[in-house]
């Protein structure tokens, strides 16, 4: 990630180039192309906010474009209101529309979200038809052309469009470098992990959607004045608008400022020139070019040209060969006896039951986790361990029963809320944010308690240092060993300053050395003052690590006690190996 200053400098450079082109270009037609490049880049940037950064691919973004066009023009026609003010009204309407559309639609997942976004522009088209606005022409205002955005000098439109682009660039940059921007990218990379790290994904998506609606409305308003002159539902709510937006972003690269700029700079002139030169003989050449571009990009560079170029130029990032790693880790004090568990219950689970379509996953499970203890949860396959964690963590709500955390009722709350209360979690298969560096991964956790980005970065570095990964802070997760990934996940979890840490099979897939390092890290978590609850299958390690063990079998709590007690309990042996094994071994 480039430094903050460099980013703003680059934005200024783009604006400077834009200005230079505006005054350098001579032909009226070329000015039109320039205006279009600026406008589509801005439109792409606005789409990028919700679909690039947040990863919610919307096929209906032209709704806001159309709102911008219609509101400004209708206000001129009906109220004689200057579009300069009309634009502001349009922004308001667009943001309101974003709220109304977003609220129900963000509850849909995956493909259903995309399909739903298709419907809205179609509905707007129908409504506009029905209201009788099939063709609304902008009335000529010869007396006050500037006041009504009717410039005779094409350079004025260029500058106006450039101003829109500049504003959208600045908005995007501000988002990119803010806490919201990091959180949006976390949602895109792995929404569940983001929730577990305290990110309220619904709220973030709504904010992003509202922020993405405003520039789109402005682009629509300017487009209608600079290019269209007559507003029809097809022209502003139609498929070509969203196709152009998509092409610009996908060709250039999603999730980055530069993508839409590059995409627009490449695609718009190409298609415009083709349209002028052969457009008469080959109507529809634009569509073919755009469609072909989409196909080629998906086949060969699905992330977009910007990322592909970056990959080629910078080489493969951080292919860590991390063969011989000495057991680093741990803060000052260590040793199992250094910090003894206290007697107060941090977590109280009472009578929790959970069933899935006929299968009783958890049945009346009750236990306590005391402050500063390391509690192990074990049990044969299908015992309900991960379901239990999902309940404790907020991914599932129990059918019956209560979970109390720090004395408050925590039953059924969202994972992000629980995280903010102090419940942290790692996952069985490490859920990293693959396109964020280790430092950025951990920052997501730090953002629970701090807002400014530099503060979060400092905390993240400190956390990475504690687990011995400070030197890899700017590497990407791909290419890291399992051990490093788990340590990073732990650091990210610790950055949320949890009181309770839920570790889901933290030792899975680790070799002997790795297990030792991880055990050390887990012990150090306890010495930081947190309570640890671990699910594990690797019994050897857990026996020396855990203060107490709880055994689940078929959703019920089977036994509870010290490791020695539990592993010698006949009921436990029977649960794991069967009654007949027990009988054979004479019930040792």
């Amino acid at each position, binding site marked *: 990630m480039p430094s903050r200053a460099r980013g703003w400098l680059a934005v200024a450079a783009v604006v400077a180039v834009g200005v230079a082109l505006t005054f350098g270009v001579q032909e009226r037609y070329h000015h039109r192309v320039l205006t279009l490049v600026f406008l589509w880049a801005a439109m792409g940037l606005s789409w990028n906010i919700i679909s690039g950064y947040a990863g919610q691919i919307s096929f209906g973004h032209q709704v806001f474009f159309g709102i911008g066009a219609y509101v400004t023009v209708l206000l001129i026609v009906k109220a004689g209101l200057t579009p300069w003010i009309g634009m502001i009204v349009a922004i308001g309407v667009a943001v309101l529309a974003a709220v109304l559309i977003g609220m129900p639609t963000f509850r849909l997942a995956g493909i259903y979200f995309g399909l739903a976004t298709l419907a809205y522009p179609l509905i707007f088209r129908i409504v506009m038809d029905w209201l009788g606005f099939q063709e609304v022409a902008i009335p000529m205002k010869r007396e006050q052309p500037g006041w009504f955005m009717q410039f005779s000098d094409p350079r004025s439109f260029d500058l106006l469009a450039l101003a829109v682009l500049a504003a959208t660039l600045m908005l995007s940059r501000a988002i990119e470098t803010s806490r919201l921007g990091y959180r949006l990218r976390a949602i895109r990379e792995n929404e569940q992990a983001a929730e577990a790290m305290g990110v309220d994904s619904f709220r973030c998506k709504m904010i992003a959607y509202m922020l993405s609606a405003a520039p789109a409305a402005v682009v629509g308003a300017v487009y209608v004045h600079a290019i269209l002159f007559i507003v029809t539902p097809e022209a502003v709510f139609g498929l070509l608008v969203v196709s152009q937006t998509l092409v610009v972003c996908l060709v250039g690269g999603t999730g980055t400022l530069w993508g839409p700029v590059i995409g627009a700079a490449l695609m718009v002139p190409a298609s415009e020139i083709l349209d002028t030169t052969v457009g008469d003989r080959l109507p529809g050449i634009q569509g073919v070019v755009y469609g072909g571009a989409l196909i080629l990009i998906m086949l060969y560079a699905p992330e977009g040209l910007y990322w592909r170029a970056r990959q080629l130029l910078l080489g493969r990032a951080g292919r860590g060969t991390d063969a011989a790693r000495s057991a680093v880790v741990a803060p000052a004090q260590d040793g199992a006896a250094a910090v003894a568990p206290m007697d107060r219950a941090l977590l109280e689970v009472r009578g929790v039951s959970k069933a899935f379509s006929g299968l009783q996953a958890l049945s009346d499970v009750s236990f306590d986790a005391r402050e500063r203890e390391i509690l192990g949860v074990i049990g*044969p*396959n*299908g015992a309900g361990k991960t379901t239990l964690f999902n309940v404790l963590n907020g991914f599932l709500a129990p059918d019956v029963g209560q979970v109390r955390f720090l004395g408050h009722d925590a039953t059924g709350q969202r994972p992000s809320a629980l995280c903010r209360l102090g419940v942290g979690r790692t996952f069985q*298969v*490490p859920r990293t944010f693959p396109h964020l560096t280790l430092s950025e991964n951990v920052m997501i956790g730090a953002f629970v308690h701090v807002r400014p980005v530099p503060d979060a970065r400092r905390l993240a570095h400190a956390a990475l240092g504690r687990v011995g990964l400070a030197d890899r802070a700017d590497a990407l997760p791909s290419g*890291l*060993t*399992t051990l490093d*990934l788990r340590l990073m996940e732990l650091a990210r979890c610790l950055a949320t300053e949890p009181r309770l840490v839920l570790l889901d*099979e933290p030792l*899975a*897939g*680790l*070799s002997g050395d790795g297990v030792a390092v991880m055990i050390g890290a887990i012990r150090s978590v306890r010495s930081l003052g947190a309570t640890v609850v671990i699910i594990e*299958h*690797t*019994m*050897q*390690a*857990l*026996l020396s690590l855990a203060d107490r063990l709880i055994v689940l079998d078929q959703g019920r709590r089977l036994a509870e006690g010290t*490791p*020695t007690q539990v*592993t*010698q309990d006949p009921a*436990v*042996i029977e649960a*794991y*190996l*069967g009654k*007949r*094994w027990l009988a*054979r*071994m004479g019930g*040792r």
Partner: protein
Amino acid sequence: MLAIERLGVSYEGLHALADVSLEVAEGEFVTIVGPNGAGKTTLLKAISGTAPSDAGRIAYKGQDLGLLQPSARAALGIAHVPEGRRVFPSLTVMENLELGSYRRTARAARSQGLEEVLALFPVLRQRQRQLAGSLSGGEQQMLALGRGLMARPDLLLLDEPSQGLGPRIVEQIFETIDRIRRERRLTILLVEQRVVEALELCDRGYVLETGRVVLAGGREALLADPRVQRAYLGA
């Protein structure tokens, strides 16, 4: 029939299997036991080709399975009855069985195969037109077993047939497996969590723990070996 040398498999960066070597001779019944997470299912997936290996070699009837697609391996006579049964829920019992004999050599003997399987599992004959998704767990397991047998395989891979089933059904299933073993000339590789039942059925066994083979031996030796318990409970 099956020779595995120093097999290594990683999932998303996690090492699921490391340096695993074992072999199964023609007509043998070999069991692999071990606690959850030991890599038993991964081993069977590697043999079937749905888990890519990054080290070692799997040879079937002398042929290196190498890069063969899963469907190609099934065509060679390997029948995999997967963990969790994985019957096709929107197809009927009969259709599931018919698909078991999808491969060419089995297709020719389909009606004979159906008769044999339905004789083995009478409850399936009763429910032949029912959707597989509506069957109980035990019935689905029988269907999955029957589907596997329809392929007239040379090597039968069974992945935790007892999983999620009540004790009485489990007994039935194991009895049936024993019967299958006695009545047909099949080579069987069974993966199980339930130690005694699995070991009692087999000729030889391996114990897997965290991706490695920690014990190997004949049936009686393993049944009497307390170290098996340590693999499960660590003590």
